[in-house]
């Protein structure tokens, strides 16, 4: 059958037309074999541009369509839909990317025009071989897995559960709540963090649609959008959740205390059987076996002896449980780590007692924290008379993280405010590089602090030391800083220094991204599908991200992302089935010789080997069309739909259209 190809070259305003001679490419395209019509248009993605395609299909009987414009990520769907409206199968369309791959990469008009021709020629040659394909319906399992029980995960889980969908919320720590549970006040409204968070935590704990799996981790993820098989390890708490009432007597009676490096940031202690904090959800305690005398030396059992429930809720024999759950979608809300400030030795953390991290200070000012809210030095008695708060510790710093952590200016201002409030006589300094307070009510909060008498010093702190040069500095911490507004070096002697460290990606974000088969950027943050238009989706269908695992953000942004991810998932659930791209591999059963090379290839375990007939088969429903087996099959009998040998080789021939004629590839002599 002779094909009639329509070719449409897009100007994209000036995005393409300023470097590519669009008219020339269209004229040239019109002369190529099989091309029936070639046009150029200002914006092919506009409804007028799409109508051009539709009308040409109907009037000229086009059988194949090529649009040379932007990345298929942007508008492949748009143009496929236009083809469908014109009466063509959507796969009779091919897109040539002459923007991201061409006009945006150079100012050389001649070279860009030549490349636009090569890319267009490749698409024309390929599209001739394109075959009609029908989308595959995939049923969406209505259950959702949310990984991470911080405010992002809580928001997402509640949104979905409220809409009537079942959610598995998996949290690594013994309680949900995340970083927000550790904070005292939230900027700029100074709401009590716990007061606004704990009701949500309780809702999660009590919600009939939420299965809460705390002290649990995802170990394996199989399957695909609509049907993920997830393996969760529920670590042994050594407390029987069925019978424990959460009375706390075991905690009270436990004779051993250890430093709490997680929730109290090392500033306070906890028992060996413990709840991270009083409002923990769930209420069941957990035994820290590394420090438990019974687990280490076989003696004590105080918790079991004093447990008032019948049967006894302390179970030293409890084992980790492996749970298998099936979900349709997954939301990752795994949060962030704080930059380890001891990496910047000149700030003295760990060496100079009265240098604190922001998290230590949060716990200190928290009324339920280790000092009952009193701001004191490391001796836990003396209130400081002067405090320096250092911004951008590890952020906006070429040696550590180049990015701005977004929240540090605001919480540093909050710290200054809290110090003024609790210690009105104290002098408070904020050393900042730039003051970044975009957000509702944020700039107003900054102005309020200016009026409260905080000293603002614009400059990066060089070092914090305890080496006095003059009498006033004796016994103080001296903060050396270049005050760039007055162009002077300053030495500020103070009692206390608070470091505001960068928010960074979780230290295991790389492994997590591999586990869920999605991307992670150089800083370790998870990569969204589109930075502006699709910030909570990932490149993997059915996997969403929310909160600080995607990049530094504050509570309101995190909550919004949690809800946004939930909305994306909810739309899939309410549709029940989705049409998946029919780009799948298939093995010709007649020709398979059973060599079994492909058997270990499939990342989705979609290939089965039939011992009886000695052939391998791809289970279409499991196949994600990655093409690994297609490349591996030495007999060439696995076909990747829409990526066949014919199509790819034609595309290569097309892209080399002007090279072949100039080269004698097979010289006679």
């Amino acid at each position, binding site marked *: 059958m002779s094909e009639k190809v329509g070719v449409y070259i897009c100007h994209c305003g000036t995005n393409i037309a300023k470097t590519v001679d669009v008219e020339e490419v269209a004229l040239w395209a019109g002369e190529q074999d099989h091309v029936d019509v070639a046009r150029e248009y200002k914006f092919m993605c506009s409804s007028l541009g799409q109508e051009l395609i539709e009308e040409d299909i109907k009037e000229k009987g086009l059988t194949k369509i090529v649009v040379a414009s932007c990345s298929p990520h942007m508008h492949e769907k748009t143009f496929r839909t236009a083809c469908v409206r014109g009466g063509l199968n959507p796969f009779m369309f091919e897109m040539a990317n002459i923007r991201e791959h061409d006009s945006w990469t150079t100012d050389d008009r001649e070279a860009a025009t030549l490349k636009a021709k090569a890319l267009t020629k490749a698409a024309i040659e390929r599209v001739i071989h394109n075959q009609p394909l029908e989308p595959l319906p995939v049923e969406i399992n209505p259950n959702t897995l949310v990984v991470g029980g911080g405010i992002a995960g809580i928001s997402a889980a509640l949104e979905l559960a409220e809409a009537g969908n079942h959610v598995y919320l998996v949290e690594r720590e013994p309680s949900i709540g995340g970083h927000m549970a550790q904070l005292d006040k939230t900027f700029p409204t100074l709401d009590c963090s716990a007061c606004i968070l704990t009701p949500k935590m309780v809702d999660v704990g009590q919600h009939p649609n939420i299965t809460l799996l705390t002290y649990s981790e995802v170990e394996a993820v199989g399957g695909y959008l609509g049907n993920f098989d997830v393996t969760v390890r529920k670590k042994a708490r050594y407390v029987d959740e069925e019978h424990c009432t959460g009375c706390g007597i075991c905690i009270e009676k436990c004779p051993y205390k250890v430093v709490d490096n997680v929730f109290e940031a090392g500033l306070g202690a906890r028992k060996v059987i413990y709840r991270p904090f009083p409002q923990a959800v769930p209420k069941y305690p957990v035994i820290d076996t590394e420090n438990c005398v019974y687990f280490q030396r076989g003696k004590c059992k105080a918790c079991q002896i004093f447990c008032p429930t019948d049967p006894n809720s302390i179970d030293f024999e409890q084992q980790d449980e492996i749970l298998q759950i099936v979900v349709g979608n997954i939301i990752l809300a795994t949060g962030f780590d704080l930059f380890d400030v001891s990496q910047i030795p000149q700030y003295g953390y760990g060496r100079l007692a009265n240098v604190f991290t922001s998290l230590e200070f949060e716990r200190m000012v928290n009324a339920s924290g280790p000092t009952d809210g009193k701001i004191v030095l490391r001796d836990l008695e003396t209130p400081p008379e002067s405090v320096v708060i250092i911004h951008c510790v590890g952020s906006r710093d070429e040696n550590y993280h180049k990015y701005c952590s977004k929240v540090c200016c605001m919480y540093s201002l909050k710290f200054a405010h809290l110090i003024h409030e609790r210690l009105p006589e104290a002098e408070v300094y904020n050393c900042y590089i730039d003051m970044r307070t975009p957000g509702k009510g944020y700039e107003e909060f900054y102005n309020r602090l200016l009026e409260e008498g905080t000293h603002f010093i614009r400059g990066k702190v060089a070092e914090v030391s305890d080496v006095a040069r003059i009498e006033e500095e004796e016994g103080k911490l001296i903060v050396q800083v270049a005050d760039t507004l007055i162009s002077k070096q300053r030495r500020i002697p103070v009692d206390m220094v608070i470091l505001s460290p960068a928010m960074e990606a979780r230290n295991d974000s790389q*492994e997590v991204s*591999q586990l869920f088969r999605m991307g992670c950027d150089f800083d370790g943050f998870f990569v969204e599908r589109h930075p502006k238009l699709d910030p909570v989706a990932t490149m993997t269908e059915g996997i969403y991200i929310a909160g600080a695992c995607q990049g530094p953000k504050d509570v309101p942004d995190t909550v919004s992302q949690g809800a946004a991810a939930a909305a994306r998932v909810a739309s899939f659930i309410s549709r029940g089935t989705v049409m998946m791209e029919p780009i799948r591999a298939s093995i010709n059963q007649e*020709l*398979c*010789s*059973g*060599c*079994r*090379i*492909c*058997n*270990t*290839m499939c990342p989705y375990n979609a290939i089965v*080997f039939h011992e009886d007939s000695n052939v391998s088969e791809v289970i279409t429903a499991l196949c994600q069309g990655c093409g*690994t087996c297609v*490349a*591996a*099959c*030495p*007999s*060439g*009998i696995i*076909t990747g739909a829409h990526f066949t*040998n014919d199509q790819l*080789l034609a595309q290569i021939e097309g892209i080399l259209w002007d090279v072949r004629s100039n080269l004698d*590839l*097979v*010289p*006679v*002599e």
Partner: protein
Amino acid sequence: MTENAKPKLAMYWASSCGGCEISILNIHEKILIVDEVFDIAFFPCIADFKTKDVKGYPDGYIDVCLFNGAIRNSENEEMAHLLRQKSKVLVAYGSCSYEGCIPALSNLTTKQATLDTVFLDNPTIDNPEGILPQPRYEVPEGELELPVFYNTVKSLDQVVDVDYYLPGCPPEPPQIWAVLEIVVAALLEGAPLPPKGAIVGARDVAVCEECPLEKHEKTINRFYRPYEIIPEPGLCLLEQGLVCVGPATRAGCGALCPQVGMSCRGCYGPLDDVEDQGAKMLSAIASVIGVGDPSMEEDELEREIQAVVDTIPDPAGTFYRFSMAHSLLRRANLNGGNGKGEAK
């Protein structure tokens, strides 16, 4: 047809080892049937014919010409054109004429490098004056002429139109006989011939289909050359680290080699949907290398993989042993630094 009405058979060797001629005789007593059915019109290996005899035939005089050997020099090419002209059916017989085979491995280098090796550099050569073969040479008796040695070895179908391909190095007797039967039936009884361009005397599945060795899922930690291990009997050789090209090779031979512990070399060529046998097998081999784990740093993983790859000493010769001329690249770049010698 001619005076005695028997169909005319020709067999010619271009750049080849002679094994294909022997393979015809390897059909044993059936050769008598061949003699009975056919009139030999040209077969330099077994009967005294001269090129001028062939030139004297009318066009299409020969019913079937089995052409073996690659196109290596000007004489090969001239004979290919001549026999095409004089034959009704031209069969590319054997791996050399089908896809280049061993001679085409010299496409990895240049004509000059080949001549230097053979006539100058080889330690057993005594050629103090550095004399190289010349296409023309004056002697008192007149001018002598030698065929021109080409830079690039080609398959038969890269110089003339080919009707059928009969793969193998050499083709196996049952397959040769099967093809001859089809031809005889067509000539004598008017039975239909296969479609033009067909690969005859072979199957459309891979050698593994005929190979009785037990196959499992594959992960390979290193490769072995045949002398390095004695393979476990009954088990897939590839799984044991011997580079067996069987999965990428057309069946029809009966998997003779792997059954005696020698991995398949790939002489029957690629399957229908494979463009480039070597690349396909390389891709398959790369897919089953099973070292490292996801926790490794990229460069560490790369080193581990490279160490496995390094256990294959001659990848081009291993994976393109038979198919260099027919491969996507066909030869090493003459203008770059890839060939051993300088471009001509």
